[in-house]
């Protein structure tokens, strides 16, 4: 095992890679389902991103700590139990302290369990790396997931409802008086897919590493 510190350059790449070069949504195209479902407004998107952050980083650490003890034949089941337990905890905490948001997210919090990003990171990373690195990997990937969620939600809320985090931006700017109208289509799920598509397009045209050889 290398002796480099937790914050070495190599380890920092664990944090920064998923933000761009290896983004779970736009590059690996995982976790799309929730990205489409809860990006109508910023608030649920932020809460969802935070929930995934908690679940993924803790699950990564827990699985990494147990990585020598987990019988490989039942490892996926073990992942699911760990993830499910964490998700239920998050759900209960949301219900107790941010009731409105938990009502809005309703089934989607439960669906974190099926978020491919989480199972994918546990299998691909946490099972083979020590807890510190696994934690950074968890943070990095949930930031990568969260950043896309928030960007998509930003555009959908702004163009679809004319608000940002519930604050009526466009109304304050007086755009409605000039004849502007909200685009109702942005609220519908298909536009989330289009928005994610545009993001992927923009990212691939900008990031040379992602341009495939002909």
């Amino acid at each position, binding site marked *: 095992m290398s002796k480099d510190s937790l914050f070495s350059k190599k380890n920092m790449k664990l944090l920064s890679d998923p933000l761009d070069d290896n983004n779970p949504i736009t590059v690996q195209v995982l976790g799309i389902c929730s990205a489409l479902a809860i990006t109508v407004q910023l608030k649920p998107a932020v809460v969802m991103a935070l929930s995934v952050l908690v679940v993924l980083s803790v699950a990564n650490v827990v699985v990494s700590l147990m990585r*020598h*003890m*987990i*019988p*490989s*034949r*039942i490892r996926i*089941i*073990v992942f699911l*139990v*760990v993830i499910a*337990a964490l998700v*239920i*905890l998050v759900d*209960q*905490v949301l*219900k*107790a*302290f941010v*009731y*409105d948001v938990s009502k809005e997210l309703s089934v989607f919090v439960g669906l974190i369990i099926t978020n491919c990003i989480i199972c994918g990171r546990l299998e691909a990373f946490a099972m083979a790396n020590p807890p510190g690195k696994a934690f950074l990997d968890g943070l990095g990937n949930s930031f990568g997931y969260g950043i896309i969620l928030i960007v998509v939600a930003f555009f959908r809320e702004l163009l679809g409802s004319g608000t940002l985090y519930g604050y009526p931006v466009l109304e304050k700017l007086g755009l409605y008086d000039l004849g502007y109208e909200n685009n109702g289509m942005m609220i519908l799920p298909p536009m989330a897919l289009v928005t994610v598509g545009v993001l992927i397009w923009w990212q691939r045209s900008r990031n040379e590493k992602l341009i495939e050889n002909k």
Partner: protein
Amino acid sequence: MDVNKNSYTFGFAAIMVIIVAALLSSAAIGLKPFQDRNIELEKKQNILSSVGIVTDRDGAEELYLTYIKQELVLNNKGEEVEGSTFDIDLAKEVKKEADAQVLPLFISEVDGKTMYIIPLRGKGLWGPIWGFISLEDDLNTVFGAVFDHKGETPGLGAEINRPMFQDPFAGKSIFNGEEFKSIKVIKGGAGEDNMHGVDGISGGTITSDGVTDMLLERLTMYLPYFNKIKPTIEVDSVFSSMDSVVTVNDSIIN
């Protein structure tokens, strides 16, 4: 140690499940008071919104104390019985025989107007639906109604919790003269002059019918109580008009 032995696998799974179960149940127990508090405040918020008072959840407690003047528990003969109105679990009550049910009734006073708030509970398409309907002091005119649901189809049946569906209830009558009509949610739309019907939701017919059934079933339970208190309300108004007659007479005599 060989982590791939069958016995180890079983042991590992068993221990892990026990630890997780213990962790989750203690979390559930520890957080329950906070969750119950949220549910209680939301109920108060809903009760208030049925009489037209809009508030967020934090303000619900105080406004509830201000506006809800009386909480009654009734049986289906219209008699008052002992009990805590707020804690009645309607989900359990509606499953009992009519005779065994206790009926919650909230009486509020807003701007000097007395209003009767009746909690509702029924079945939608996928699960329970519930709500509150408020009647003005003639026990006939609907002042407002709120509905909510557990899992009706988004965009269709789920629309019952939107103002678009709820607002038309205001001003409708549950009686036609002496005859109890309830309020029906009508597929294809109720006519403008229909005093006992509101527009249904396109594509949400079963949920709409659920609302109709719920209103009919719940309101019927309260009829004995209405019949009992109606005369006193009418007598009150007769008395007040007699008072004015008497004063007129007095002034003539004088």
